[in-house]
């Protein structure tokens, strides 16, 4: 079991109408690892998740989850996966607790066990106060947490989280991250899609970057960051000063770029830890006054620009279920 990957996609393609959602995607996730699938809207992330979770069939290619084929052994796959979709799929007319008990019972846990598990999960996901309220009134963050709780009712060994924090405010996002970290501590294998580099960086062991239905880069967060130059230091001086460059250069990596008015300096960061203090001290020593200082993490746009040479295209494209497009809009 440990030798075979828990999640394996080989040459997956999928077309919805005129849109080539996936154009040949390969990746694999070893047992207990966390893969971050990073990409902009419409990159094919959701399609990949829908195939891996047996909701959609690939046009070509194969995918195996926990050793079972997602098309020919879909039932075996379903017994081993938990899924939290992008649009939280909780039953709005039920309470949080009823949702969890229902999922447990539909998965054939005995009723008492389902209820005990629901109580346990409500505590764990910080939903105790809202447990017996109808999910319709839940905030976005609560809904996502309930959805996540629903996906782990049976303690599945493989979890799929499709953009678990998209649209959440920073507080809810941090909370969600804590919850996900806790889940992962249980040793599940996790595939997580995200539009945020920071999220993939924080949570994932390795990252694949997808664009237009293809994997365009893969590696650890550190590898990707190296590839794109990592974080950048940006210093704004009170006034242009000739000694500023000299004072900074031992602290940063590579060339320092200076703006036309000489007030803004920027350079790649070698080691972010302690950098702010060191920079302030060095500039102060050189008699340079500082207005502002920022270490900026590369954004998804930076990654894309570095990898593809073009910025992310935020197309309003079928990341959502194609079914909704065809049938119900």
């Amino acid at each position: 079991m440990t030798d075979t990957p828990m999640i394996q996609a080989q040459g997956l393609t999928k077309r919805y109408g005129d849109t080539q959602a996936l154009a040949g995607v390969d990746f694999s996730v070893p047992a207990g690892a966390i893969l971050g699938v990073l990409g902009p809207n419409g990159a094919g992330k959701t399609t990949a998740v829908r195939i891996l979770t047996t909701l959609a069939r690939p046009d070509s290619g194969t995918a195996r989850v926990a050793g079972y084929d997602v098309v020919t052994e879909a039932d075996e796959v379903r017994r081993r996966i938990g899924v939290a979709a992008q649009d939280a799929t909780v039953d709005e007319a039920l309470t949080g607790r009823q949702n969890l008990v229902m999922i447990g019972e539909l998965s054939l846990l005995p009723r008492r066990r389902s209820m005990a598990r629901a109580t346990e999960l409500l505590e764990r996901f910080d939903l105790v106060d809202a447990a017996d309220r109808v999910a319709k009134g839940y905030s976005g963050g609560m809904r996502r947490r309930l959805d996540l709780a629903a996906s782990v009712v049976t303690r599945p060994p493989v979890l799929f989280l499709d953009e678990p924090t998209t649209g959440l405010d920073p507080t809810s996002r941090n909370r969600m991250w804590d919850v996900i970290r806790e889940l992962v501590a249980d040793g599940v294998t996790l595939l997580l899609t995200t539009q945020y580099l920071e999220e993939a960086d924080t949570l994932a062991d390795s990252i694949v970057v997808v664009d237009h239905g293809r994997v365009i880069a893969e590696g650890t967060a550190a590898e990707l960051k190296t590839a794109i130059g990592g974080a950048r230091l940006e210093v704004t001086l009170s006034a242009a000063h000739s000694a500023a460059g000299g004072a900074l250069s031992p602290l940063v990596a590579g060339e320092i770029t200076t703006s036309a008015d000489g007030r803004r300096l920027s350079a790649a960061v070698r080691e972010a830890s302690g950098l702010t203090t060191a920079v302030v001290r060095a500039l102060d020593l050189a008699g340079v006054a500082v207005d502002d200082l920022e270490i900026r993490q590369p954004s998804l746009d930076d990654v894309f620009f570095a990898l593809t040479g073009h910025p992310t295209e935020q197309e309003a494209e079928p990341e959502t279920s194609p079914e909704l497009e065809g049938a119900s809009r």
Partner: protein
Amino acid sequence: MTIAVERPVAVDLPAPTGRLSQRWHNVVVLTRRNLVHISRDPMQLSDVTVQPVLFTLLFIYVFGAGVPITGGSYKDFAVAGLLILNLTTSVIGTAVGLCTDLTTGVVDRFRTLPMWRPSILVGRSASDIMSATLCAVIVALTGLAIGWRTSTSLLSVVAGFGLALLFSYALSWGSACLGMVSKGPESAQSLGLIILFPLAFVSNALVPTAHMPTWLQYIADWNPVSAVTSAVRQLWGNPNPAATIHVWPMQHPVWATLAWSAVLLAIFAPLAARLFRSRTTE
């Protein structure tokens, strides 16, 4: 209170799918879910609670005044028809409920679970037969309150209700199909009305067909709604003017109702399963 220590992964691995007991259990859970839905929004039930009372009173006191019935009062004639009318129009609920589930993400969640997928359909039809039963009880109570009486044995009266519910159950599978071809709950609702209202009204449910134009009379006499209405009137011993009409379903209304129900089920249950599969395949 014991705090569960996280077990090693997949200790709770759900049982393999496909056993009969699993299917039954899935149906029970989803039926209960649908009932909880109804309890959250009791107005959902208005078409099986308020509407029957309203229709019964309106038709009997407003219409009834002008419709002479040979062999009895309009009241005794109309209650069976009102039962069938209400049951027929209330099957729209099946279409709306299914369509709502399909357009929200909840069916996607179900589809990633190791469950018997048709239980989504079967659970829906089970909760609908329960609300249909409630509807029948309310029509009967309203009827009794205003003086409707039966003149046959209890067994025969119960058989009348059973036959009406069987027909309504069979028809609800047609409504399920409607729900699956509708784009959204609203269009399911209006499509349902367009089909079911003529079906319910072009019949002998509220007026004897004898005074209709010939062509309409012909349609009405062959309408399955007329057959089940006549069958119920016959079983209840209520006035049944259609007994004199020389058309097979009116001569043998009980058999006609059983045949219609069987035909509806044989066509629409497999069709519903197929539509469900194609709607949820991508």
